[in-house]
């Protein structure tokens, strides 16, 4: 009797562990599955010009604001330049170039759809470009501006 109950507990525990494992695996694939299912809206991110970002996508997704904040202080106050970490370098790589409506110039929001789409999805206001330019810099200036 006691033995039978023990087996039942073991089976329940095993089922629980399996359920957790399956859920974790599903979550790991979740991003892709959700995108494929088409039922949950996800932000559309236009392709970048470059091949590689300064960090992997996951780190950038979570840490880009801290990286930019640190670089902002270092570069403005002490003149420590890291061209690849400048906001303007992000713009030069991620900005949309082709007009969305033929013949019409891009609006700043269209140009920076990469930032704006995700920020509006996450409901986080995007203030950088109230002052910083959303224009792609001239090649001579790339990797240089403040």
């Amino acid at each position, binding site marked *: 009797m006691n033995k039978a109950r023990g087996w039942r507990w073991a089976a329940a525990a095993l089922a629980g562990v399996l359920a957790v494992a399956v859920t974790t695996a599903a979550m790991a694939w979740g991003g892709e599955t959700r995108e494929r299912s088409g039922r949950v809206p996800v932000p559309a991110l236009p392709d970048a010009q470059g091949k590689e970002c300064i960090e992997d996508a996951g780190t950038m997704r979570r840490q880009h604001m801290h990286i930019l904040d640190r670089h*902002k202080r*270092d570069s*403005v*106050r*002490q*003149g*420590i*330049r*890291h*061209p690849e970490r400048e906001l*303007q370098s992000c*713009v030069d790589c991620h900005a949309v170039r082709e007009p969305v409506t033929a013949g019409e110039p891009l609006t700043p929001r269209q140009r920076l759809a990469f930032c704006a789409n995700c920020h509006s999805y996450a409901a986080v206001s995007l203030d950088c470009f*109230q*002052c*910083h*330019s*959303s*224009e*792609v*810099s*001239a090649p001579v*200036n790339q990797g*240089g*501006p*403040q």
Partner: protein
Amino acid sequence: MSEEQHNDRSVNAERRRLLGGAAALAGLAIAPGVFLVQAAVPTRPDGTPATDQVRWGMLVDTNRCRTNCDACVTACRDENGWHGHGRPETDVKWIRKITITEEDGRRTSLPMMCQHCAKPPCAYVCPTGATFRRDDGVVLVDKHLCIGCRYCMMACPYQVRFFVHEPVAADSPNHPRGKGTVEGCNLCVHRIDRGVLPACVEACASSGRGALIFGDLNNPRSEISRAIAAHGAESVRADLKLDTGVRYQGLS
């Protein structure tokens, strides 16, 4: 370049020596005292902070400067995107041409911009620490901190700071501009940090009259120090003893 190399002063010194040599070659004299190309700015490697080993300065030779020339002003406007709205009272003007008339009627034309004081009244009064003097002598506004109180504008004796009252037509990738903050000449930090001369100096040499010299006041061998040693130079309103980084020749 690796992080270790960045921090290695001997590499830095070596680079400076090589660059100095290259600059000497680039600045081939076509006649004594007349240079074809101005010596380039010594560069500081990426990833290293500005230090007080360098003090950036500018020398204006008013004997060469002419009333009808504004090459420096136009170049600065294009570089830093401060195109105005035709409202002189409120428009931003990082650099402007002024004419001084002496008592004997002699007129001197000169460009006036932030003088990059070593003892900057603007920074002393700033309540937020937005205005500060970088270690290499450039006086800047950190617009992330500026609250637009305009104390600095009142403290500055040269009237070279401006409040951005309204949006400018086009924004400049070279210079982020916030409505409601104060700005002024920053000696083109974005250019000098990568070894390029300020836009006004470049324009004065190419389409103006070659009246501007930019360089390191701390280095006795720099072009600017040699010119000051040879012919002297003074500050506008030298009586205020602000130890300006911008100096003028031919004022008195």
